[in-house]
């Protein structure tokens, strides 16, 4: 009896989520298959003919293969900044959760401030230029690290609080140095929340649009989101190309999702909620 009820409920849920969540993505995919004339109608119809490959080639070739440069840049920025974020945030989270000093209040305040304060863009540009980092990938990576540290630290600190202190002390008695304790003992234990961090931050940074717009001028530095934005008016009469572009930039998050889907909830259980 219960199972029949759950099947009916399940069917209703599947239908509802299909309409709300799946159809918009199907729409993107269908549009990407159409030619320019058909896509101009912007309706939910079956593509007349298979134009996906032509569309992809045209999008990728636009502006001297800028998409390729953009994908390389975005991947580089994402991988490096997420790596730095994880190491640095875990280090802070670890000490913050373990060592109580009178500075903890100040540090927590700064972390909260980082979550809340909207970054001051123009002064940041002015500063980056002074540091010769303006318009460079390094500068962009450091910006992403700075802006996303607070959230990662919060995730780590909450999770570290659930790991028994005895573990690090036992490691010390075994003769491990602090750095070893952290990298060999603590960091591996943080894997579930690290996955959450990887997923949330890599997606956020890969999809970041505003920051590269200001801190990364120039074609050689194009990022994926910027490419979409820049092509928008070039494609304004070619909805097929616009949606092919959207489809292409959705693939990397899809890969992340397929890899980490199962672990996301586990990480959330561990990290965000048990504050």
């Amino acid at each position, binding site marked *: 009896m219960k199972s029949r009820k759950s099947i009916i409920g399940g069917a209703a849920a599947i239908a509802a989520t299909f309409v709300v969540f799946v159809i918009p993505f199907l729409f993107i995919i269908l549009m990407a298959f159409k030619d320019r004339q058909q896509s101009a109608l912007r309706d939910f119809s079956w593509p007349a003919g298979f134009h996906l490959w032509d569309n992809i080639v045209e999008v990728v070739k636009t*502006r*001297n293969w800028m998409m390729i440069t953009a994908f390389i840049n975005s991947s580089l920025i994402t991988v490096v900044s997420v790596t730095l974020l994880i190491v640095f945030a875990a280090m802070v989270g670890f000490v913050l959760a373990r060592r109580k000093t009178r500075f903890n209040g100040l540090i927590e305040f700064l972390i909260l401030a980082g979550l809340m304060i909207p970054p001051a863009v*123009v002064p940041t*540009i*002015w500063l980056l*230029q002074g540091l010769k980092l*303006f*318009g460079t990938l390094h500068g962009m990576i450091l910006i992403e690290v700075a802006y996303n540290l607070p959230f990662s630290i919060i995730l780590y600190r909450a999770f570290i609080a659930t790991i028994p202190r005895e573990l690090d002390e036992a490691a010390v008695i075994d003769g491990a140095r602090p750095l070893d304790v952290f990298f060999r003992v603590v960091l591996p234990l943080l894997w579930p929340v690290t996955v959450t961090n990887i997923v949330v931050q890599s997606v956020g940074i890969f999809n970041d649009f505003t920051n590269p*717009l*200001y801190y990364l*001028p*120039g*074609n050689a530095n194009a990022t994926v989101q910027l490419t979409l*934005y*820049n*092509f*928008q*008016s*070039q494609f*304004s*009469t070619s909805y097929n190309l616009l949606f092919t572009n959207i489809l292409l930039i959705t693939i990397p998050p899809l890969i992340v999702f397929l890899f980490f889907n199962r672990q996301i909830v586990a990480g959330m259980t561990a990290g965000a909620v048990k504050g």
Partner: protein
Amino acid sequence: MTKTRLFALMGTSVLGMMLTANAVNAQQSGYLSFLIDNGPQSVAVAEAWVAAYTEQNPDVTIDIEVRPGGGEGDNIVKTRLATGAMADVFFYNSGSLFQAINPVQNLLPVTNEAWQEGIQDSFKTVVSAGGEVYGTPFAPAMGGGIFYNKPIYEELGLEIPKSWDEFMANNEKIKAAGKVAVIQTYGESWTSQLFVLADFFNVLAAEPDFAEKFTTNEAKFATSPAAVKGFDRLQDVFEAGYLNADFGAATYPDGIRMVATGEGAHYPMLTFGIGAIAETQPDHLQDVGFFAQPGDSADSNGLTTWMPDSVYIAKTTASPDLAKDFVGFIGSPAGCDIRNEAVGATGPYMIAGCELPADVPPAVSDMLPYFQEGGQNAPALEFLSPIKGPALEQITVEVGSGIRPAAEGAALYDEDVRKQAQQLGLEGW
């Protein structure tokens, strides 16, 4: 003022030939970056220029960079200039927006370069600061007015309106025939400003000193009976129910398509739209005509004109000589020919020796009489005053969608203008 002949059109090409001769000098080598906006016409013409130039100079590499248009593009240009990260050569507005990028500090003057001799003085005045000329025309001059669909006019037996009342009478007939009389495309808000901006010929006809007084804080849109009319007109066409059903969401390409294919009869726009029609609706290019925005009186009927955008050289460029050579190429008759071939002719050139092809689209031939002897034209406000309020396009969307009455919209725009004047540090604000 109303009879100002700004552009000496299609002059003899003696100067141009001198320039062509001059261009056959030593081959250049090196690297340039070239920043343009991302409009399809800009990209197409820039690519054609670069291809032609690098063919003549095989040792030169030129990278085209694109930026968004509109306010976002302004911001990028300002930021990159301020941080010394500007491309060697870039494309930007002339007139009031040019004044806002601090040209004396940021740009390389080209006053005494050979190709400048062929550029019309009226253009030089809107790309000059501190006694130096900085710009070279990127495109032909433009007019702001109304595109109309010729088949609809023929079908309904309509005449080109010379006064606002005639225009509204035409609209009434078009509406009665079950067609869309006026196309508006507020999905891209910049397109909403045309009725206000293109009315400026009529403002000057009534108040010849409006621009000077406006700059010195003595004349206001809300309190000048002539200037407030632009806002009234926006309200008129909305209240009469002449607009397309999707005016709030339609975009500029939609508007271009609608006026070309006859989905609507009138589309207020700048004449650079001819390039977009030629690109996206080549079969309908012959169906689109153009007329100036009519004012109160049929006796004074003239066109509000826009100076073309311009190419500038950043002071930070590493290869000023190459940059000058390339810009000189753009500003030569050869450059115009390449443009004509790449995106078609959209209006009269500001460069001596630049010819329009014999078979220009009707919308271009409709606009030429306003520039010729006996025709009347006047520059848009942004070329007579350094002040243009940034929120105009939002305000005109509001007035044109019935959210805000015209008088309030004008008053609000006056507030917006004050901020810009203060930012520029003008006297009297």
